[in-house]
């Protein structure tokens, strides 16, 4: 589940740049290896790994789907004791968030239904409304019986400024303070843990504006990621397919 993969569309659109960045990536790789040569095998692997991740980023198209499918297949093929969580489940994160109604909420409460997870923040005016809308669009595009069995989880990373009340007001304004929609806020550590599990990166610019990646993740009923929509305005079909599959 690397978080450094680009969507096919974006990679294609950057055609000339990809060629250049690949060359420069290769140069940097050589530089890193040169440095690492003095440095022992493990460091070499580590340094090269960092750079290779970038090269991979430039060259990979649709890898996230392959990744998701592989994870799903592996999950399906594993024999688990009843009630035991798969090792790749996000439900291993057991600390409680607080929901928009002020009640504690643990991710494991999602168990038994597939879910759509988005990280955003309330004061965000550019990307976040689009992120929330993409979750809304997913709900609208699903057959009603599948939509009715899908949970939507919106988690704020603005642990300083967002509160359950603010999130409820935000949700209400969009008509999304409703059943199956969970608007969550957690501790700084829990928030960072979830982001790290999802591959969402964010940082507070110090002025209430966050730099963050735009990611919609689908979890199956056991909390295992089965699809990721990276970037804004991307084709929701992989998410819809994962949700349909979870209801098969």
């Amino acid at each position, binding site marked *: 589940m690397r978080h450094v993969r680009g969507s096919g569309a974006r990679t294609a659109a950057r055609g000339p740049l990809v060629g250049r960045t690949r060359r420069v990536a290769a140069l940097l790789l050589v530089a890193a290896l040169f440095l690492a040569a003095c440095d022992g095998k493990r460091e070499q692997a580590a340094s090269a790994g960092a750079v290779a991740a970038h*090269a991979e980023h430039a060259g990979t198209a649709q890898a996230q789907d392959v990744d998701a499918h592989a994870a799903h297949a592996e999950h399906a093929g594993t024999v688990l004791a009843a009630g035991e969580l798969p090792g790749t489940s996000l439900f*291993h994160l057991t600390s409680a968030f607080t929901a928009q109604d002020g009640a504690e909420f643990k991710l494991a409460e999602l168990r038994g239904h597939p879910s759509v997870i988005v990280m955003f923040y309330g004061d965000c005016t550019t990307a976040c409304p689009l992120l929330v809308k993409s979750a809304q669009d997913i709900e609208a595009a699903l057959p009603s019986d599948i939509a009715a069995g899908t949970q939507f989880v919106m988690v704020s990373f603005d642990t300083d400024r967002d509160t359950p009340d603010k999130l409820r007001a935000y949700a209400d304004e969009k008509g999304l303070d409703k059943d199956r929609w969970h608007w969550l806020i957690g501790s700084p550590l829990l928030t*960072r843990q979830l982001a790290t599990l999802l591959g969402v990166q964010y940082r507070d610019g110090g002025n209430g504006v966050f730099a963050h990646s735009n990611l919609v993740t689908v979890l199956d009923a056991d909390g295992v990621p089965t699809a990721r929509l990276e970037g804004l305005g991307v084709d929701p079909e992989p998410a819809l397919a994962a949700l349909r599959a979870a209801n098969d």
Partner: protein
Amino acid sequence: MRTLTSIFRKALGQLLLAAACAFGAQAFAASMAAVDGGLVEPLFPIEGEGATVVAAFRIDVLPVTNAEFLAFVAANPEWQRGNVPEVFGGAAYLRGWASGTDLGALDPDAPVTNVTWFAAAAYCEARGARLPTEAEWEFVANAGFSNELGRNEPGYNERVLSLTANRDPVPGPVGHGAANYYGVHDMHGLVWEWVFDIGASFNTGDSRSDGDRRLQLVCGGGSAGAVDKSDYAAFLRYAFRSGLTGDYSSGGLGFRCAN
């Protein structure tokens, strides 16, 4: 006299008990340096972004050792090798340990490595601390050996780069390297270190470009925008961290705590 001895014994006993109840005497003995904070120039500033303000904080003067991590997993079995779910650490987690609670041939005083971000964060949390943010870590790393700012010292960049490049693949005991201006050891010569917000510095903002930026920053002409182009070691650190995921671990990656 006997009373005094018995009081002393009792006190000692309670002290030992308290230490055992906590996840280990060694962890609580961790010595931290007070850092006033200040400004960190982002290596790759977002357009219009100024320096990051780092508030006063404290940071371990040494990386967390194998012995300290052993005390932690002894008190928190869920973090022992074999008990950790795959999302928090795969097969590489604590590789080299003889068992969940046995370091085997590892040097107890060497920095713990083969730890994932999740394990490092849990360790610091159990100590009532946290991982340093990237800005905090870099703030300390940018200190010289005798100056608040290394770049004011002749030969500083070369020295740090040499320390970074000549690390022993099997790190030796912590604390053998020279202390920096803040009294903090081993920021460069021993291991890479986890930070709280891995990779965050490569993000562009509330924008649509997502991860593209980091690629351009590290690999393209964008690196010309880096603040101190001569600080190649810093460049390597940012590049290394940007490729990390939370479940990654390696023999050259450890951590220290802050609060």
